[in-house]
C-alpha cells in the first residue's frame, strides 16, 4: 500500500478573523488527474497556495507522498517533488523561451547554486529543455523573449516550466483561464501530454476542460470540500448542483 501523492487532513487557513479554508480533508492517489472546482472566492487558489507552501497553514497537516510538508518553504516542497503553475502568468519575461525552461531544470539536475559549471556545457539541462520546448509546441519560438509571446504561448510556457523539473505532483492553477475555445482545447491536449504518468491537481473554471480531463473532481464551497468523486457522480450530486453548478452541469452532461 503506497502513500497517496497528496493528503490533506484538517487543513485550515484564516486571514485575520476570516476563515477562508475551514477544515479540508483530501486524498489524491498517485497518478490521478484531480480537478478542484467551486464558485469564485470559495478558496480554491488559497488551497493551492497552502499545498505549495506559499502561505503557512493555520491548522492541519499536508503530506506529499507520505512525507509531512506542513510549514515547509516553497523551495523545500518543490525539491520534494511538487511543482505548480500560477493563475496569473508567472514566467521570466526577459529571458528566452529556452532559458526559461532551462532555469527550471537546473536545481533538480543537481547544478543547484553552482558557479563552477559553464551553463552552455550542461548537455543534460540543454537536452531536457529542448525536449520540453518541443513538446509544448514552442520550438519555433525557442529564442524569443518570453515577454513577447502571445498569451496562449505564455500559458504553454508556464506549463513547460512547471513540468520541466520532473516533479511527480503537478499543480495547475486555472491553466486555460482567458483562452478561446480552440486555444483551451489545445491546452487540454497539452496538459494531458505533459502530465502523463504524473499526479495532476488543477483548479479550473471551464467545465468542459474539467470533465474532459479529470479522473476525480472535488467541489470546494466556502472553504470546505462538499464532494469528491468521479465526474459522473459529481454531475448527479444534488448538494453540488444546489450549491454551485446547477444548470451548467446539466448543460455539460447533455451537451
Amino acid at each position, binding site marked *: 500500500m503506497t502513500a497517496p501523492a497528496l493528503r490533506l487532513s484538517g487543513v485550515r487557513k484564516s486571514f485575520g478573523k476570516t476563515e477562508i479554508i475551514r477544515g479540508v480533508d483530501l486524498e489524491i492517489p498517485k497518478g490521478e488527474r484531480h480537478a478542484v472546482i467551486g464558485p469564485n472566492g470559495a478558496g480554491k487558489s488559497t488551497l493551492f497556495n497552502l499545498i505549495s507552501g506559499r502561505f503557512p497553514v493555520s491548522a492541519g497537516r499536508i503530506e506529499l507522498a507520505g512525507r509531512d510538508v506542513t510549514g515547509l*518553504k*516553497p523551495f523545500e516542497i518543490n525539491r520534494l517533488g511538487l*511543482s505548480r503553475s500560477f493563475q496569473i502568468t508567472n514566467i521570466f519575461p526577459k529571458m528566452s523561451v529556452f532559458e526559461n525552461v532551462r532555469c527550471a531544470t537546473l536545481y533538480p539536475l543537481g547544478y543547484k*547554486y553552482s558557479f563552477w559549471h559553464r*551553463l552552455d556545457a550542461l548537455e543534460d539541462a540543454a537536452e531536457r529543455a*529542448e525536449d520540453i520546448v518541443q513538446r509544448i509546441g514552442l520550438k519555433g519560438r525557442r529564442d524569443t523573449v518570453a515577454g513577447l509571446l502571445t498569451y496562449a504561448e505564455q500559458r504553454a510556457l508556464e506549463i513547460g*516550466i512547471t513540468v520541466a523539473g520532473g516533479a511527480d505532483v503537478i499543480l495547475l492553477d486555472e491553466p486555460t483561464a482567458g483562452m478561446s475555445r480552440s486555444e483551451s482545447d489545445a491546452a487540454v491536449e497539452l496538459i494531458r501530454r505533459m502530465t502523463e504518468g504524473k499526479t495532476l491537481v488543477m483548479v479550473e473554471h471551464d467545465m468542459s476542460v474539467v470533465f474532459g480531463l479529470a479522473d476525480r473532481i472535488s467541489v470546494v464551497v466556502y472553504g470546505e470540500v462538499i464532494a469528491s468523486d468521479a465526474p459522473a457522480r459529481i454531475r448527479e450530486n444534488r448538494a453540488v448542483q444546489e450549491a454551485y453548478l446547477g444548470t451548467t452541469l446539466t448543460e455539460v452532461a447533455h451537451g
Partner: protein
Amino acid sequence: MSTNAAPAGREIRFEPIDVGRWFVWGFTALVFLVLPLIFRSGFAITLLSQMGILIVFALSYNMIFGQGGMLSFGHAVYSGLGAFFAIHAMNWISAGTLPLPISLLPLVGGVFGALFGVLFGYVTTKKAGTPFAMITLGIGEMVFAASLMFPGFFGGEGGISGNRVVGEPFLGITYGPAIQVYYLIATWCFVSMVAMFAFSHTPLGRISNAVRDNPERAEFLGYDTQRVRYLVLIVSAFFAGISGGLAAINFEIVTAENVSAARSGGVLLAAFIGGAMFFFGPIIGSVIFVLFAIALSEWTKAWQFYLGVFFVVMVMYAPGGVASLILMNLRVMKYRLFGRMRDAYTGVLLSGAVLLVGLILLVEMSYHLTLNFATGSRTKIFGFGFDGAQPEFWVLAVGTTIGGALAFEAMRRRFASDWGAVQEQIEDQVQREQRA
C-alpha cells in the same frame, strides 16, 4: 517541417558566438596592452590605471545590481576593507613578516572582501528590494564610522600608507614606475573581467537573473532566493576586494574615504551611466566616470555638478545607459536606416551644444564668483575672458542658455518622432523576416 528521426533537442547547433567571444577577449587584451603606448603621458597612465581599478569595482557591483537586482548603497565597504587589509599586508611584506609578492596583493584584498561579504551579506541579503538598499546604507555608515573610531587599524584621518617598491625585483619589475603598476592593474582587470563574464554564464549567475526578474517563480523552481542573493553577494564582494587591493597598490595609501558613501555612490553612478542591464555597460561607465572625476576635475571645480547633471539626463532620456544607446544605434545602422536619423542627430547635437555652452557659462561664472572671490570676478572660460561682475556677461550666458534650451526642445521632439518612425520600420522588417 522536417520529420526525420533525430531525437528531440539533439540536433547540432553552430555557435558562432563562441568564435566571436575569443575575438572580443583577444581584442580587449590587445587594447589593454597597446593603450599606454598610444597615451604616453604620466597623466594618461594615471587615468588608465584608475579606469582599470574602477572597471573591476563597477563590474563587481553590477553582479548584484544589474544582474542580481540588488540596489546597494554600500558596496565600497567590500572594496575599502579589502584595500585596508591589502595595505597592511603590503606593510607586512615590507617588514619581511609576510612572504608574498606584491603582484598577488589584490588577492589579499579579494579574500578579505569576500570574508566581509560572508559577514555583512548574511545580514543584508535577508531582504530584497528597498529593505536591502536601506540595510546596505546602514552598514556603509557603520563601517565608515568604525574606520574613524579605530585608528590603530584604519589610521584615523590620515589613513594607512605603504610602499609598493619592496623586495627583490622580479624580471626587473619593481613597481616603482607607474607604467609597471598599470600593467599589473591591466592584468588583474582583464582576468577579473573574464572571470565575472564567465560567472554570468554559470547556473548561479543565470539564476540570479531569474531571482531579479521574478523571485517568486524562482522559489517554486527549488531555489532559496535568499541563498542565491547571499552567494552572489559574496562572489561580488570578492571582486570588489580585488579592486580595493589594486587601489592600495596604485595609491600606496588607504583612508576612510575608501569605505565612504561617496565611493559607494560613485560606483552606482558608473554602473548606471554605462548600462546596468549589459555586462559591458559598467566598463563604459567606469571610463566615463574616471574622465569626469580625474580629467574634468583638472579643468573645473564644478565637475561633480556636471556629473550630476549628466547622470540625471541619462536617467531621464537613456535609462539603459550608454551601452543601450550604442546597441540601439547599431541596430538602426544594421537596418541601414541611420541616414534617416542624420538630420535629427545634427539638430539635437548642435542645439544641445549651444545649451551646454550656456549652462557652462552660468555654472562657471557662479562658481568663480562664490569660490574664488579673492582673485577677482574675472575668469577664463573656453579661453575667453569673462567677468561675473559685469551684467552683460550674464545676459549673454542666460540668453545662450534659453536660446539653446528652446532650440533643443524643438529638435528633441523632432528627433523623438523620427526615432519612433525608424523603430517602427525596423519592427515591421523584423516581423516580415520572421514570417519569411
